[in-house]
């Protein structure tokens, strides 16, 4: 089981801020997880529509090659705009 989080405009587009997911067979990287989620269609198509999407794994910035393992927290969000 992994925990997936969505923030800001992506959260609004997908219509939820968090979900739990049993890692599907063969999904062991951020890129593979992203493809799996976007492939669900419906609201999750937002993932493909958003430019420059950022990812964090276990609350650290990561890239598409980063590993994803059972128990991880993976967050997707648009470029940050604080400060």
């Amino acid at each position, binding site marked *: 089981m992994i925990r997936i989080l969505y*923030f800001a405009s992506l959260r609004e587009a997908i219509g939820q801020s968090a979900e739990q997911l049993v890692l599907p067979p063969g999904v062991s990287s951020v890129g593979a997880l992203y493809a799996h989620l976007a492939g669900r269609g419906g609201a999750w198509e937002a993932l493909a529509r958003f430019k420059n999407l950022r990812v964090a794994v276990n*609350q650290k910035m990561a890239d598409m090659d980063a590993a994803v393992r059972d128990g991880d927290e993976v967050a997707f*969000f*648009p*470029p*940050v*705009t604080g*400060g």
Partner: protein
Amino acid sequence: MSVSVQQQDFDVGAEIAALTAGRPQIGAVASFVGLVRDANDGAGVSRMELEHYPGMTEKALEDIVAEARTRWDIMDVRVIHRYGPLRPGERIVLVIVAGAHRGEAFAACEFIMDYLKTRAPFWKKEKTAAGERWVEAREADDEAVRRWSS
């Protein structure tokens, strides 16, 4: 070093005084306060909502401060970033860097702000006459952070 992510406002003078109290080795304090402006990208802004990623935000800010401390000989840092609803004129962020000399304090303070703008998970949503909109990331902020890599 101390990082806070909070809804409530902060007192700049009190924070500087707390950071420097009883530490007469400190000769230079550079600080920055970011405020909500009443206009952005050509539209009036009446309200702002700052979303963040609880847990990651604090870690990201602490990592940025730790990085600044490896780059410059500074003595202490204080970062406060607010979230939640804010109105024009309200304080959003405070960065204070204390050190022996001003050059390093200024550089570290600006470095922390530049990294914070591109690495700390905060997102601004503005309310304008035309409705609500998420603030877009600025290319200028990416440029600002790239300077520090050269």
